[in-house]
């Protein structure tokens, strides 16, 4: 394996180990997701047809909010203990280990949502056929949320009230992902087929992978200088 590959793997393994040691933080994000989803029937009424109609959108909005909730952890700890500066001084390209950190973050916070979502969708009586598409749309969409969110997390690093600011910065940028993600499920339910939405999400993911780590690395340099 090349030097770049091993650096990527090392950062990934380190962040996953750290996350495993602090499991409670991760579980809180997942619990938040479940609780938010379960609040909706209380808010809009438990009428089955209505729940079926709003189910995909509710799951997507909840996924988006819990992503937002966990984002500040992406760089905060490394910033506080000086690891971030060491990483920035290292000869490895910053975009590389930034990507590794985002991948680790997604495995820890995004992947559990993808796994849990179909079960929660059953609470909303979403049809069986749509569950697979929901899972795929979340699997393609939540990494985009993590990649875009990482830019916001880097920009607001160490600021007072950074969490609220992060939400204001990132939420407008999340709208396309939300539209195509929830749209994919709605399209299946409407009998239209979800491939167009899923392809757009996939394209968005490729675009975000290509561009976001560089913006994020630039933002981190600005934050620590």
């Amino acid at each position, binding site marked *: 394996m090349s030097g770049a590959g091993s650096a990527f793997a090392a950062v990934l393994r380190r962040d996953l180990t750290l996350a495993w040691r602090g499991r409670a933080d991760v579980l809180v994000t997942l619990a938040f997701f479940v609780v938010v989803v379960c609040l909706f029937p209380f808010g809009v009424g438990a009428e089955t047809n209505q729940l079926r109609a709003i189910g995909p959108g509710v799951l997507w909005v909840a996924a988006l909010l819990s992503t937002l909730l966990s984002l500040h952890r992406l760089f905060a700890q490394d910033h506080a203990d000086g690891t971030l500066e060491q990483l920035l001084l290292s000869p490895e390209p910053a975009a590389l280990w930034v990507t590794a950190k985002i991948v680790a973050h997604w495995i820890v916070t995004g992947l559990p949502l993808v796994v849990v979502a179909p079960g929660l969708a059953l609470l909303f009586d979403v049809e069986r056929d749509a569950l697979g598409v929901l899972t795929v749309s979340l699997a393609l969409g939540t990494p985009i949320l993590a990649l875009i969110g990482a830019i916001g997390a880097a920009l607001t690093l160490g600021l007072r009230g950074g969490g609220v600011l992060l939400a204001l910065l990132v939420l407008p940028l999340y*709208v*396309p992902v939300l*539209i195509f993600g929830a749209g994919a499920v709605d399209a299946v339910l409407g009998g239209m087929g979800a491939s167009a939405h899923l392809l757009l999400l996939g394209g968005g993911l490729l675009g975000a992978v290509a561009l976001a780590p560089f*913006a994020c690395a630039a933002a981190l340099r600005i934050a620590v200088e």
Partner: protein
Amino acid sequence: MRDLDNKDLRGRSLLRFASPQVFYPVAGLLAPWFAGIAAVLTVIGLYIGFFVAPTDFQQGEVYRVIFIHVPAAWMSMLVYLVMAFWSAVGLVMNTRLSFMMARALAPTGAIFCFIALWTGALWGKPTWGTYWVWDARLTSQLLLLFLYLGYMALTEAIEDARRADRAGAIIALVGAINVPIIYFSVQWWNTLHQGASVSITKAPTMATTMLMGMLIMAIAAWAYTIAVAFWRVRPIILERERHTDWVGAELERLGSR
């Protein structure tokens, strides 16, 4: 940079205006002129709009809001692009003044955005029967306002001017890449779900006087934006350059007046 004396400043290159010291008096000199142009054109444009332009055969008098609404909507989008442009110039060429221009432009863009939304709502009530629909244009305009607010909130939250400039520049550029994505996604979302909805893209063929009034108002909005941006950039320059001698002299002159 010490030997950047007056002789060099009077060089022929346009780039000399990238120096805050050179640009400061130029902005002060030009701002009143642009403000004057804006005021005169606004009066002419509104006169044409409210007294000369004929009543629309479909919408009656209500349509007259376009003389404010359409120029505001145009400017809100254009100002964001200009802001992103200056941000890119600042990041690439490391010029301080371009960051200052970006920050001076943001509030104006946000205000135009708000005016466009507000006048649109006032027009929508009598015309569509509702203040708001989740139409593609309206929704993306609302998200553009959020992008402006995010930019301003971020640059205001960071105390260190250098970090604030660069962080703002990155979010402006990320936003600029996303604005078309947001626009098309919202448009598609809308058409997929609601079928053909009310569209303001297909305007009825317009009388020449209407078009004239609108274009004059658009130019007035341009002039206003330039004037306000120049006025707003001057205190920013003074604040950022307060360690220099010329700002000290300028502040003394302002104080003694």
